[in-house]
């Protein structure tokens, strides 16, 4: 399916604490590779908790572990990913004369990994 999701990268407590352990350490890498998704969207797309998915933007793609967001946290169509290397790989280089690439609210597509 080709429906478009909106991806919001952001901070989490665990992203912050594991950052202090080291960006190259397993816990930080795990946290920043965990995608949170609305449970209704997961049902609709046949994704189960803990399953690997591929997220594609116009500029890059990353493989992530998908987890269900808490009820009401994310509306359908919205995805959340803790800030880190994977979220940055989905950004383009264009900054629209601000110095800042579009880093939140990115249009992305999601595929289940077979």
């Amino acid at each position, binding site marked *: 399916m080709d429906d478009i999701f*909106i991806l*919001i990268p*952001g*901070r*989490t*407590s665990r992203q*912050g*604490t*594991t*950052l*202090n*352990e*080291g*960006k*190259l350490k397993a816990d930080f890498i795990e946290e920043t590779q965990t995608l949170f998704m609305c449970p209704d969207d997961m049902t609709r797309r046949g994704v189960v908790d803990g399953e690997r998915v591929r997220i594609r933007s116009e*500029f*890059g793609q990353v493989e992530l572990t998908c987890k269900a967001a*808490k009820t*009401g*946290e*994310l*509306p359908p169509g*919205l995805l*959340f990913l803790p800030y*880190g*290397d994977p979220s*940055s*790989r989905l*950004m*383009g*280089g*264009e*900054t*629209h*004369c*601000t*110095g*800042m*690439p*579009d*880093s*939140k*609210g990115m249009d992305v597509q999601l595929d289940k990994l077979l």
Partner: protein
Amino acid sequence: MSAAAVIDAEVKEDEVKIVKDATCTFCGCVCDDMELTVVANKITKAKNACVLGKAWFLNHHIEDHPVATIDGQPATLEEGVERAAQILANARYPIVYGLSDTTCEAQRVAVSIADRIGGCVDTTTSVCHGPSGMAFQGVGEVTCTLGEVKNRADLVIFWGGNPAESHPRHWTRYSLMPKGLFVPNGRKGRTAVLVDVRKSKSAAAADIFWQIKPRKDFEVLWALRALVKGVEIDPEIEQETGISLAQMQDLVQRMKSCKFGIIFFGMGLSMTRGKHMNVEAALSLARDLNDYTRFYAKPVRGHGNVTGADNVVAWQTGYPFGVSLGRGYPRFNPGEFTTSDTLARGEADAGLIIASDPAGNFSQPARDHLKKIPYIALDPHESETTRGAAVHFCTATYGINTPGTVYRMDDVPIPLRPAFDSPFPSDETVLRAIEKRVREILRERLTN
């Protein structure tokens, strides 16, 4: 013998030291009421620290790493300085970038180096609240300190952020929980509002939570401005934004009637499409409300001294970030001289990167170009950026190992009280050595 082994030999295992009023530099709150317990060069307790501050202090350790590496091979400090100075002095379009996790004293030396080599100086502000900096220039900023918020604010609005997880003590120390001079009942005397696209952990602590549709911040802020000025709004705005007209009218009434209101805005505004226009809308709303009451707007800043970077670069060049010194005088142009752009367009031919990780945070085109050019990295820890550096200096951690000055997110300077010495030099020490050698090379070039 590594630098870490040298200092281990000098420290007694049972030596306990208490450091009072230490400063946490993990985030822009820069809480300066830490009480650290240090045992044999290891922080074992961090009283008053939040979960992020505890992780900052308790995970701190002296890296078992050479003081410098050149192309990944161990080198002396002097060898590293020589190679770094040669790279920078011979570059045609060098960039100086990072700076948000180091002291103001180091930042000013970095700006000086950029000036000498005719480079672009830019900070991590450009990929965080850089658009907010542009908005300040566009419409102005009605500003105040966090101390004023603590003592006076009775309406506190967080827009596009999740302080419960990104700045846990913002609420407890500055903005919501504390009892203030004119807010004697603390939390009970304040109304807290959260506006975000996601019902984050912060929502539970707010009195009013608005879950707006993604990329509709500008529309909601502009509608609020209209309502403040008495302009009629079509009720169908709810279909566009997710917020009903009645909700907006209620908030406008609260904003007009409060004694001291503030909007703390996060990167939900500055990083989302619209960027500086989103922030301009928030700043304009705060400005307009001053026709009725006292109202302010402040960005919630991330890194420990990113606000200091804005201040230092501004007081030295006249502009806060994205400054080119290539013509011998400062020019400011976000999108042209900002590092994300100079790298993504393949323009920069050398770099001096201080306390940041563009190889791990930037867009793919920018990362790809960074890999192609020689650059110097100063960082206490290993990262994707230090791994690819032509020269990496392992430096002491600011605030924990080195003294100096940092700016809290409300532009208040705070002194650092280090917990213990590091075997590694400070960023300032390394930068001063590089600057001295660059000066010598440039002088030799003029006389030959």
